[in-house]
Structure formats: structure tokens, C-alpha cells
């Protein structure tokens, strides 16, 4: 299985103070922990349980995800672009792995 790959779609340029939409997607099976294997053993839960959005290192929003989030989780939301800077996004896996993506936005 390929390593979870995050993707972010948001504008690379904006006006100061503009509100823009951010679309995120990450490939991940989101094993819910409700399934059983052919021997009847419960397949342990392994999902991405937290999403974080930051601008220039300052936290904007966090989202807790539970087993009901679909596989290959898509999430969209809105951010304000105060000035030129970098948005960073992080996805935290149950196993402790952190997947990151970032987007520099230029205000001009």
C-alpha cells in the first residue's frame, strides 16, 4: 500500500485579508476498528484522528476525526490570508505518524 499522500488545493496568490477556500485530501484506508478478519478477530482501528491548520506557525483550527470519516478523507474549509506567508496542514495517524502539506500564499 502506498504511503498516505496529502494533497492541498488553494490559491497561491490572494489579496490582503481575502477569504479563500482550502480543499484537502489524503489517501488513507481509515480502518474503523469495527471490522473482523476471516478468523473472527477484530481488525484494529487505524485512522487519521486529527487535522491541524496553521499560518506561519500559528494554529488556526484543529479537527478531531473519528471512525465515521470516509476512507481517503476529503475536507474543505475557509481561511483568511492576512499577508504573504505559508499555510501548513498536518494529519496525525493513530500510529503516531504525521503527514504534512504546505502552501505558500503571496499577497500582492
Amino acid at each position, binding site marked *: *500500500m502506498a504511503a498516505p499522500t496529502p494533497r492541498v488545493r488553494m490559491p497561491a496568490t490572494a489579496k490582503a485579508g481575502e477569504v479563500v477556500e482550502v480543499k484537502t485530501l489524503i489517501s*488513507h484506508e481509515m480502518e474503523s476498528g469495527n*471490522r473482523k478478519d476471516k478468523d473472527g478477530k477484530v481488525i484494529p482501528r487505524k485512522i487519521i484522528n486529527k487535522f491541524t491548520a496553521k499560518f506561519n506557525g500559528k494554529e488556526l*483550527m484543529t479537527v478531531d476525526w473519528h*471512525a*465515521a*470519516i470516509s*476512507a481517503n478523507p476529503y475536507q474543505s474549509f475557509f481561511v483568511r490570508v492576512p499577508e504573504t506567508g505559508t499555510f501548513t496542514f498536518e494529519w496525525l495517524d493513530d500510529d503516531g505518524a504525521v503527514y504534512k502539506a504546505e502552501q505558500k500564499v503571496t499577497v500582492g
Partner: protein
Amino acid sequence: MTKVLRGLKKAITRRSVLAGLATAGVAVCAAPLVAVAAPEQVAEEVKKLTGGKAIAEGKIKLDLPSIAENGLVVPLNFDVESPMTEKDYVKTVTFYSEGNPNPLVAAFHFSPLMPKAAGQIRIRLAQTQNIVAIAEMADGKFYTAKREVKVTIGGCGG
């Protein structure tokens, strides 16, 4: 927006998506003896969040399809009315499922730096059920909205 989504989807190989879907489809399935979250369980979780405080209706725009053809990927759109200023903003928006094995779906924690308490997530639903949203404001007030989603092909493939 569809173009953007297509672009995003291409980044994920068909194989990995199918693998994900196949897993996801079965993933929501509860074994026959596993209990499903009931409205009472959701009410308990909500009480944990609100401490039993009164919850008002309004402020929350909660959009879910009334009929979901595919229980594996059901889009949930929300938008909570708020000026989103330092003093007056939406602190959290929490979503609950009354018909999945687990009652919790997702919880958004907003800072006043966020321009809108709005977004979209995609969720798995095991069967026809209600989705409940609770918004918590900075001033301590709570609001709620509820939508029923009929699921034709459940996250359990039938």
C-alpha cells in the same frame, strides 16, 4: 469546483481508491452482535459536551443528502452563523451519528482567526439515521441541528 475535485482525485490512483473503498465499505459494518450507537448514546455524548446546559435551535446550516445512494461517502456541509471576531466566534462544532457503531463523527475546533465556521467532510453511514450537530460559541451558548439521511446501500454493502 468539480474540476478541482477531479484534479485532486487523479492524484490518488484508482487502485488505492478502490482498495480504500473496499475496506471502507466493510469498515463501517458492525458484526451482527455489535451494538449500534443509539440516539440515547448520542444524547449522553452531547451531555458530556454541554454539561447539561440548554441547547437552542438555529445558527447552524447543516446540509446532508436526504437520500444517500452510497453509504461509504456521504458529503456533509455545514456553516454556522457568527461574526467570527475575537469576542464572538464559534469555538467548536461537533457531529454525532445515531446509527453507526460509534456515536462520534468529527469535532471542529476553531480559533477566532478563522473567517468562517464552515466546511465539508465526507462520512460513512451504516444505515438510515440522524446526524446531529452541536455548535459551541465563545460565550458558552450551544446550538443544535439534526438531519436524517436515508441510506439505500449502507456502508455494509446492502
